[in-house]
C-alpha cells in the first residue's frame, strides 16, 4: 500500500534532529535505515505526522575504540557491523546475531540503532546487546545520557527513549580474553523473525566456565537475561552434563507469548534446548 501522508525533514546534525523531534513531539518518528518503519507505514500500522530522517548525519555512523570500550554509531548498518574488524574482534556475539537479521538487502539499509530503538523482542540485535551489557547513549534537548541495555527495553516495541531523544551510539565494554560466544536462532524459514533466539557468551579457563551471560529473544515483551542459567553455569564443567542441567532453567522468569509460530509452552521448550546448544557452542 501507499504510506500515509507525513511531513519530512532531513536534519544534518544531531542537534537539529533533536530539535525537530522536540517540535514533533509524540507524532514524530525517527527514520534511520527504514527497514522496520517502512513496512509499518506501508501496512498502515504507523501514522506519524513528521518523519525525521537522520540518514544524512555522518557523525552517527562508524565504529571506533575509546579505551576499553567499543563505540558503534547508531546509524551504522548491519552490513557494516558484520564486516567491521573491531566488532569482530571485540563484539563477535553482536556480529553473529546481526548475521541472522533478515537478508542482505535489508542489512544494507537497516541500522544497529534502528533495530534497538524499534525494541522488537523478536529482534536478534537487542538480545546480543543485552547479553553484552552495552550502554546506549541518547541525546535530547538537555544533552546526553547513558542507559544500561538491561534498562533500555521497557515493553513490546517500547524503550526508555523519550520522544525528543535520539539514540546516538552504543558503547560495548571490550570483553578481554577467554570469552567464547554463540547466537542460536530458531525460525520457520530463512529471513524470518526468531521464534526464539539465545545469545550466549562464556569465559572459560581450564575446561571450566568462570562466567556466563545468556540472553533470550522473543521470550517476553523485551529481551531478557536467563539469570538462573547464568548462575548455574558459574563454575560448571564444560565436558560433563552441567551445561544441559543449567540450560533446563533457561525459561525461568520469562513470559513468552503464544502466536501463530509457537505456543508459550513450546517457546519455553525452545529456550531450554537452544540455550544448551548456544552455551555448548560458546564454550567449545
Amino acid at each position, binding site marked *: 500500500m*501507499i504510506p500515509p501522508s507525513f511531513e519530512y525533514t532531513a536534519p544534518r546534525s544531531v542537534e537539529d534532529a533533536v530539535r525537530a523531534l522536540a517540535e514533533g513531539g509524540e507524532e514524530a518518528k525517527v527514520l534511520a535505515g527504514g527497514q522496520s518503519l517502512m*513496512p509499518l*507505514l506501508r501496512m498502515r500500522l504507523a501514522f506519524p505526522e513528521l518523519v525525521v530522517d537522520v540518514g544524512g548525519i555522518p557523525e552517527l555512523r562508524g565504529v571506533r575504540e575509546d579505551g576499553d570500550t567499543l563505540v558503534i554509531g547508531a546509524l551504522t548498518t548491519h552490513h557494516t557491523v558484520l564486516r567491521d574488524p573491531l566488532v569482530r574482534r571485540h563484539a563477535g556475539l553482536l556480529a553473529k546475531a546481526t548475521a541472522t537479521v533478515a*537478508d*542482505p*538487502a535489508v542489512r544494507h539499509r537497516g541500522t544497529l540503532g534502528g533495530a534497538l530503538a524499534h525494541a522488537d523482542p523478536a529482534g536478534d540485535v537487542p538480545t546480543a546487546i543485552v547479553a553484552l551489557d552495552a550502554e546506549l547513549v541518547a541525546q535530547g534537548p538537555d544533552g546526553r545520557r547513558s542507559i544500561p541495555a538491561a534498562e533500555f527495553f521497557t515493553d513490546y516495541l517500547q524503550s526508555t527513549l523519550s520522544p525528543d531523544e535520539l539514540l546516538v551510539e552504543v558503547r560495548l565494554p571490550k570483553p578481554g580474553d577467554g570469552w567464547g560466544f554463540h547466537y542460536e536462532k530458531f525460525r520457520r524459514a530463512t*529471513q524470518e523473525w526468531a521464534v526464539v533466539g539465545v545469545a550466549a557468551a562464556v569465559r572459560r579457563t581450564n575446561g571450566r566456565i568462570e562466567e556466563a551471560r545468556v540472553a533470550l529473544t522473543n521470550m517476553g515483551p523485551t529481551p531478557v537475561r536467563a539469570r538462573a542459567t547464568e548462575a548455574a553455569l558459574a563454575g560448571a564443567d564444560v565436558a560433563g552434563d552441567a551445561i544441559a542441567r543449567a540450560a533446563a532453567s533457561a525459561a525461568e522468569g520469562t513470559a513468552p507469548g503464544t502466536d501463530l509460530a509457537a505456543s508459550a509452552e513450546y517457546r519455553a521448550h525452545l529456550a531450554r534446548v537452544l540455550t544448551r546448544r548456544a552455551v555448548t557452542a560458546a564454550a567449545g
Partner: protein
Amino acid sequence: MHRISLKVDGTTYEDHVEPRLLLIHYLRDRLGLTGTPIGCDTGNCGACTVDLDGQSVKSCSVLAVQADGSEVTTVEGLASDGQWHPLQRAFHERHGLQCGYCTPGMLMAARDLLAENPDPTADEVRHGLEGNLCRCTGYQNIVRAVLAAAREQREQPAPSGEEASV
C-alpha cells in the same frame, strides 16, 4: 513536495515528490521503469530489489527522498549495447525462471552477491539470495544460473570501461 535529483540507469532525473513516495513507485509510475515489479507489502519477497549506490536494496522499503543524490541501477540498466549481462544470459540458458516475476530482483541480488563474492559456493548463493522469494522454480536453476554467471565473469572479466556495471 520535496525536490530530488538522482541518476537512474545512467540518466539524471530532477523531480518534485511527496515524502511518502516509495522509490519503487517513483521508478515505475513516474519514470515508467516497469521492469522492476512490486511483489509484497512487507519487504519479504525481494522482487523490487535494485542497486542503490552500489548495494542491493528493496525499493519498496526506501523513500524516493532518501535516494536524493544517489545512483540507482535497475534491471533495465543491466544490458549494455544490446548485450545481456552474464547473469541475464545465464538465467535464460539455465532456465532460472518460470513466470519471471521474481527475476528482476533475483538478478539484482545476484549481481550484488557476485560483486562481493565472485566465486561463491552453491550454499553461499542460497544465503546471498535469502531475501528473494521464487514461487516457481524451487531455486535449483536459479542457483545454477548464478554459479554459471560467476564462472563466466571470472573467466571473462568485463572490459575496464564496464567494470562498474558488473
